[in-house]
């Protein structure tokens, strides 16, 4: 009881304001008063600045709009009138006259002269890329659906028509959504609309890292991350088609990149994905994820040459719960002499090595209806590669859009026995940055007919194809990386 009384007395003593508390209140009052005065001073300052800006704006608006000093050479119908006259421009900043930085030249970030900004100021970038392909081949290849674009032999079709929307989400992140359509490989001409990519990238993470998450084309090797219209060849190299399918590795998950603090470029990447790709993985579970990694480096070779080297890995499970690991090695070299806007020579290549385990069912070897050999797991270590390049021999004029290239492919099949090689030249013409045509020939030879290459009991061991590609870009399109 005594203890309880003691506690109550102590608590009451603490609650009763003493002389010290009174001093503290006084100090707080003074502090508040000081803050109020500071606020008043700031307010006055801002009001003054706003009034000055308003006066400046009125002065600018009251100036007569003199005829613009546009070049007389502007094409008829395409004349682009200038909003600023020569007098206005000269009056803006004449070094011969003493300049008051506050009066004349202080930037008004994020505000600027209203003429400069359009109505799309807060809108993201939009672009459309159209990629159309034509394929001509032999009748037996057509019948067997064994051409480069299986099921679309001897057709002109939209391979990829994409709507891209991209831009800053906020100061910390960037977003990109790509919706695409293309013809399905079933000769009916049916188009399907699908989400090609949708991802956000956190740009301001510590330790020079960035995190990209969503649905994306994986950064595995050189070409997998590029959409068909951005690739340097008409068709996808055979090794990519065989090992990761015609669509390539497009996965849902996240990639973390890191640029090393080194005097040369070294980028590291790790990714974790569902593993939805049916050709190589297909387990589709984050509990047994597809894990990817990539190291990329780059060296300038003199003033005009440059080479990029990369190694990639993708490790995941197949639907049969067997492990598959793909190792990728890639290199790209470009040479652009002084004064050339486009590379005179581009050479690139990729090699993929697969370590895959598959289930093989036991066989009835003597035909008695009883399985004689047990089910077993076998290893499929397979290899494939391609090397190709393009020469654009003209520096200027309309001819600078002309190019000629070649690609050689060699690949084993990832699961079945056999291999194939292909070779083909192509020519290209690019009238502008936004329009391109390519015409090529491709010869493919396969060591054996495969079940999926010989539909309708037709043989397609030797395939000759003429390929044509027309690509256009409408609106915004990001600059191409090396």
């Amino acid at each position: 009881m005594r203890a309880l009384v003691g506690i109550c007395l102590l608590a009451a003593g603490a609650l009763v304001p003493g002389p010290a508390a009174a001093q503290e209140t006084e100090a707080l009052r003074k502090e508040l008063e000081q803050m109020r005065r500071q606020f008043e001073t700031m307010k006055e300052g801002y009001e003054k600045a706003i009034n000055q800006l308003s006066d400046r704006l009125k002065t600018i608006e009251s100036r007569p709009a003199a005829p613009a000093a546009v070049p007389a050479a502007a094409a008829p119908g395409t004349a682009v009138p200038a909003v600023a006259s020569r007098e206005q421009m000269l009056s803006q900043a004449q070094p011969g006259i003493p300049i008051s930085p506050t009066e004349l030249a202080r930037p008004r970030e994020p505000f600027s002269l209203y003429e400069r900004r359009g109505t799309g100021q807060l809108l993201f970038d939009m672009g459309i890329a159209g990629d159309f392909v034509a394929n001509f081949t032999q009748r037996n290849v057509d019948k067997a659906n064994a051409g480069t674009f299986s099921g679309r032999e001897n057709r002109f079709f939209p391979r990829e028509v994409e709507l891209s929307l991209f831009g800053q989400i906020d100061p910390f992140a960037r977003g990109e959504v790509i919706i695409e359509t293309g013809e399905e490989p079933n000769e009916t001409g049916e188009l399907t609309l699908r989400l090609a990519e949708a991802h956000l990238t956190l740009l301001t993470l510590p330790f020079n890292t960035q995190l990209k998450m969503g649905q994306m084309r994986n950064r595995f090797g050189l070409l997998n991350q590029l959409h068909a219209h951005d690739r340097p060849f008409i068709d996808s190299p055979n090794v990519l088609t065989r090992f990761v399918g015609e669509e390539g590795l497009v996965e849902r998950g996240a990639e973390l990149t890191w640029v090393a603090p080194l005097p040369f470029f070294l980028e590291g990447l790790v990714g974790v994905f569902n593993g939805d790709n049916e050709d190589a993985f297909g387990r589709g579970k984050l509990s047994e994820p597809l894990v990817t990694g990539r190291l990329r480096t780059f060296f300038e070779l003199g003033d005009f040459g440059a080479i990029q080297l990369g190694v990639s890995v993708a490790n995941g499970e197949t639907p049969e719960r067997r492990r598959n690991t793909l190792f990728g090695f890639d290199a790209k070299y470009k040479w652009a002499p002084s004064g050339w806007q486009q590379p005179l020579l581009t050479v690139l290549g990729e090699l993929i090595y697969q370590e895959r385990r598959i289930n093989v069912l036991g066989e009835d070897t003597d035909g008695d209806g009883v399985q004689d050999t047990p089910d077993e797991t076998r290893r499929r270590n397979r290899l494939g590669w391609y090397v190709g390049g393009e020469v654009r021999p003209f520096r200027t004029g309309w001819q600078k859009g002309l190019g000629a290239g070649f690609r050689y492919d060699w690949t084993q099949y990832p699961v079945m026995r056999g291999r194939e090689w292909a070779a083909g030249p192509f020519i290209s013409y690019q009238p502008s940055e936004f329009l391109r045509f390519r015409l090529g020939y491709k010869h493919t030879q396969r060591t054996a007919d495969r079940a999926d290459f010989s539909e309708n009991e037709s043989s397609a061991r030797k395939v000759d194809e003429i390929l044509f590609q027309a690509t256009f870009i409408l609106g915004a399109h990001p600059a191409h990386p090396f």
Partner: protein
Amino acid sequence: MRTLLRALGTGLLALGLSAGGAEAADRIRVVATTTDLKALTEAVGGSLVEADALARGNQNAHDLEVRPSLMVKVRRADVLVINGLELDQWAEVVVRGANNPNVMPGAPGRVDASSGILVLEVPRARVDRSMGDVHPLGNPHYTGDPGMAPVITTNILEGLARVAPQHRATFERNRQEFLTRLAQAMTRWSADLAPFKGAKVIVDHNMWLYFLTRFGLVQAGSIEERPGIPPTPGHLTRLIASMKEEKIRVVLTVPWGDQKLAERVAQEAGAKAVVVASAVGAVKGADTYLDTIDYNVKAVAQALK
């Protein structure tokens, strides 16, 4: 194998540490997209900055290939100075690949040098790519006009002061000294070109409008019929005919342009093709911003004589 990996790891760590040591230097690391902006940054920053440029002086800054070596430069930058007005849009891809939050859009280390510039040729009507590779925000070649330097250097000063506010006074002093030298040179340049006021010239690419307007010269046409699109024979025929008719004596061309074509057009029209410095470092003798303008003024004045 383990020994090899350990050696590799140690080597990378050592390289990283040495790079880190360099980063520890006291100077502000600035990367500018063009050599003009690099030179103006050096004028403001003086010995307090270590500036580098992404595009070389003799390169076309419209269409630069995004090389990872550019990302290495930006990765270490405290400040990135961009030209803006969509001249150097490729810089965004470089920035994203560099993983450097200091210079991401909206970061304090990001400087858009075009802020506050009174831009010429801002389209009032709808533009599309039938007009070529037009710049929808207006002509972005304002650094060719020395009269724009006060605004550009103010933008740079503000950017540097955001990153290193303790050096603001030094930046302001450097800037004033530079502007004083610029004003003296401007008097000389204006006098050099005064006799040719109203003279018409032809350009290969529409990048001299600010410069010509500043000194009272007139851009009467361009070899490029539309930006970024090679000219048609019909356009060249019309251009040569108009040059003859209007007695135009000078064709301005740049190091990355089609100089042979410029010379052919000039020859057929009885004019002279003159190579001008499209940016600092584009030609021999154009080593600083003032030297570059000096070079161009002399080249144009000489050709117009």
